[in-house]
């Protein structure tokens, strides 16, 4: 009488008696091995995303000293740190995407148009321009990044590229909180029609520039109009 085999033997009839995974009544893994981006394309996207996050962190840091509203100064502190963490996580993903071992700081703009857009967002300087300063990141750039990150998470390979999905998911969760905070501040600052108009004009101008650039990846069609 043969004993129950715990490990497969060397011949066909020496199998174990364990039922296969699919025999159990638990949800099957319906994910397919398919994604829009290959390793090289995803590495390029991570570099592009990192460029946006790094510059966003730098410009917010630059503005802290020239924004007179104290709760805005202090509120930006946490946004700066979480933006730095986002850029850092994207940089750490790059070596995992075959970009070499010393590329954690490799940010790259998708094109000259997006780099010019970032410079436009960072332009306001005077202390009476808090509305123009905040409208760029919180009304235009951050919502655009959330939009593109979510699209990337949906379209990349759910199994092969799961680490990218995980890190983007974490960034998006925090970014949504930043946008809520920034817009609440802007709503309070824009308490008259004239101030609301300043915000609208700023957003409209930056959105047009963002659309022309093709967005953070430089690949988005102008037909989408407002990218957010």
């Amino acid at each position: 009488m043969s004993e129950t085999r715990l490990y497969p033997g060397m011949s066909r009839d020496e199998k174990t008696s364990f039922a296969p995974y699919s025999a159990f009544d638990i949800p099957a893994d319906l994910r397919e091995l398919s994604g829009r981006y290959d390793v090289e394309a995803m590495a390029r996207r991570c570099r592009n995303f990192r460029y946006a996050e790094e510059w966003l962190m730098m410009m917010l840091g630059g503005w802290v000293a020239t924004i007179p509203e104290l709760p805005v100064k202090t509120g930006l502190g946490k946004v700066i740190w979480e933006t730095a963490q986002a850029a850092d996580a994207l940089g750490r993903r790059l070596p995992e995407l075959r970009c070499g071992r010393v590329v954690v700081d490799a940010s790259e703009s998708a094109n000259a148009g997006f780099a010019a857009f970032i410079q436009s967002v960072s332009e306001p300087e005077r202390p009476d321009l808090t509305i123009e300063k905040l409208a760029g990141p919180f009304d235009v750039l951050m919502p655009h990044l959330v939009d593109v990150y979510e699209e990337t998470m949906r379209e990349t390979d759910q199994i092969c590229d799961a680490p990218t999905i995980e890190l983007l998911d974490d960034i998006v969760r925090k970014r949504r909180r930043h946008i809520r905070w920034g817009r609440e501040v802007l709503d309070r600052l824009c308490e008259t029609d004239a101030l609301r108009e300043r915000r609208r004009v700023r957003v409209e101008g930056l959105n047009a520039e963002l659309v022309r650039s093709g967005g953070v990846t430089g690949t988005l069609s102008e037909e989408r109009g407002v990218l957010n």
Partner: protein
Amino acid sequence: MKRFIQHEELARDSRFVRQDNRQSTLLAALPDDVDKVVDAFEQFSDMIEASVKGTAAEPLFEAYGPAFALTVLNEPLDPDAPAGTTRLLLRMHGIFVGEVQALEGSARSLWDFPDAPWEFKMNMARQAWDEARHVQIFEKLLTHLGGEVGMFPESTFLFECACSKDPAMRVAGVNRGLEGLACDVFRDMIRYAEKTGDEKMRQAIDYVLADELTHVRFGSEWVYEFTKDDPEYLERTREYRRTVDKQFSFGGARSDREDAAIPIAWEDRLEAGFTEEELEDLASISSSGPSRKTLVEAARILRERHLAKRAPSKQPETTEAGR
């Protein structure tokens, strides 16, 4: 947005009153000579009076004259001392605006040095968040003690002295000079909170002090990283930090002298990465100003002259500050 800003460009809301920084830097340049101290303060008397007008420091000026800062700075905080509450609030407000400037200095480093190593940017970003929390903490402690933002004038000399255009000197100034001073002041405030049984203040500042040690460590590491393989650059950076430390010693109020109002926090500073040699140097730099005896005598003369000038029409009424 341009790189590098001047301290005059630091943006503030309508509650804040700006003080001429010369008042703060004056102390660092004074010799141990009563007459020279008196002359220096008399020279700035009108400017000092104008800067405290309408603030909670006005009664201190009325009671002590232009050298009220000498009296406030050179006496250890004591809840039972005359004007004890006003002096506590003055120090707490000074810490609060110091934290605002530390936030601005660390955040500004992100924009001013775009080509700095990524790890440096990460450290500065983390420090910006920490300093932002410190601003919130000290605003709450100010309220807890009965004060409010803008009740005293703000000197931006911390930002002016510490924010160099050179990255190694920036971290030497902000992270080792300014944050080192914070270690000394916060250890003293913790002692004060323990003495008065203020557990809310003690615990909050204890956490802040822990953060400051981390910031000093950032500074220690980056000074060596930025200046590695360049001993001359390292020496210039050290010299810059010594100048900042001299300014931040307020003529010996923060020093290792027995009578210092704010003693150097040796243990905390050692934990933060300062060496014994550096601390001996700091003790020497900070103690080299006028002696406490000189300052007390100068303050007495200045007060007498001030009251004589005010008499009889503006003899101060008995206020908490004047008792």
